[in-house]
């Protein structure tokens, strides 16, 4: 991966990750590190084909994912601040 390609990918990913903007020096440095880390993953190309499918490796059983009855109004009642049928939340925009 050349420097221009690494920087283009870096810029796109930074936008997706909601990070930045970076100073030219930071962008240069971080995209270089980014490319170096990606090269660490090249070894995966040597993995023999015909592997088992992806998914969790956890060998344990977990609790059953079942639906249980929920008392009407319990969700609203569990909310710390209410006003009638409304839930009160802290003001975010313009606070």
């Amino acid at each position, binding site marked *: 991966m050349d420097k221009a390609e690494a920087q283009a990918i870096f810029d796109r*990913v930074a936008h997706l990750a*909601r*990070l930045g*903007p970076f100073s030219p020096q930071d962008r240069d440095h971080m995209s270089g*590190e980014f490319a170096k880390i990606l090269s660490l993953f090249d070894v995966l190309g040597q*993995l023999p084909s015909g592997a088992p499918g*992806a998914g969790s*490796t956890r060998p344990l059983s977990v*609790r059953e994912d079942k639906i249980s009855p929920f008392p009407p109004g319990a969700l609203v009642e569990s909310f710390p601040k209410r006003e009638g049928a409304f839930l009160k939340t802290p003001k975010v925009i313009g606070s």
Partner: protein
Amino acid sequence: MNIWELSASDLSSKVREGSLRPLEVVNDYFDRIEEVDPGIKSYLSLMKEPAQAQAKALEAKRSQGRSLGRLAGVPVAVKDNILIQDFPTTCASKILENYRGSYTATAAERLIQEDAIILGKTNMDEFAMGSSTENSAFGVTRNPWDRERVPGGSSGGSAAAVAAGLAAAALGSDTGGSIRQPASFCGLVGLKPTYGWVSRFGLVAFASSLDQIGPLTRTAGDAALIFQTIAGPDPKDSTSSPASSVAQEPRTAKGSLKGVTFGVPKEFTEAGGVDPEVAAGVEKAVKVIEAQGATIRPVSLPHSQYSLAAYYILAPSEASANLARFDGMRYGRRSEGAGDDLTALYKKSRSLGFGREVQRRILIGTFALSHGYYEAYYGKAQEVRRRVAADFEEAFRQVQFLLSPTAPTPAFRIGEKSDDPVAMYLSDIFTIPVNLAGIPAASFPCGFTQGGLPVGCQMIGPSGSDLTILDLVGCFEDATDRCFIRPALAGVRS
């Protein structure tokens, strides 16, 4: 013997029998923290008043004739990514600088229920991403064995606190080696439990399929005591395993190394970059174990060579999703001056709030999950994860446990690897496969380098063998007649 030199087990026995007062214990520890910790910087925040109040409550409980818990009066430090209600939980990040827990994590709650006393929250690599505790936004923790060196990470503050006698035991979290590697660097026992055996409720998520809370202690017996207290099913964690209830049952029999078969993975012994003194220390430990009647055999973990790459795709991928909530709106400190542009506000809050390593990992994870790269990176890494787990299953058909170095080197110098992320990632090469497979492993001290730095050996077992591992480590301690050796802390104490 000073109070702070007592093991957690001895301390709780003395408190329960009445020969030590809990308030005396707590005050002794805070005096020592005041004296020693400025030179180590293991704690980010202290809980002196609540700890003293709890100690007084314990004394009242005792005077009323009520029975005390199994950790009565044991002073414990808690890593700062584990919530304690109403107390700071910063994850060593600026973005959570003023955040206080709105509830208490199950693991911490279980310690409190057994009358342990929490002294404070310990330093760490930001959001548990790192292997040196240099990535903390609030300063570097120093290794009590050599203050020019790192204590390891990410649970470096917890490890340094226990090694320096600033807590009798500590909780850490381990996603890729973050309990075991600092235990190795600081001369402690550190357990990464079986995935699902300790509740993650109240642990700030880094990589949810890999994270586990576990103990850092001076002896295997103390690690078992803490582990038995915090393990067990928890309805508040959907990944909590019902099988973990076994860990809570009372135990009487002590293990023996005689007749146990251990495997030594050839990929680990043949790995390049292992410090000769570490290799020699582990080899010596293997010989001690063999002399106790155990059988040692070579085994193979053929896919372990792919583990590091797979881990640094999977963990950052999960981190990029878990840390998306820290945007200055939903969670985290909001940065001013972004005008009316919401995206600009998110970006500014995250860029100023997260440190360099956290940003780096979010970027890697976002990349690995993005369109066009997902199958080649994330899909392939999941495939490696399955194969690594299958390798361990095959190994455990041949032997009962595995032995390896915990880390390729002893504690390295502060700043030595901080400009080279790939070199830093290699610190975890022997610990990462264990997290990928979800199985338990403990690091235990097996010797020292000529320069006086601790060397750690890792014992790995099949799922659910956590307490047996600690029993066997206890047998190694007995065989070597080894009690905890304390660092001299030269130049720290006034």
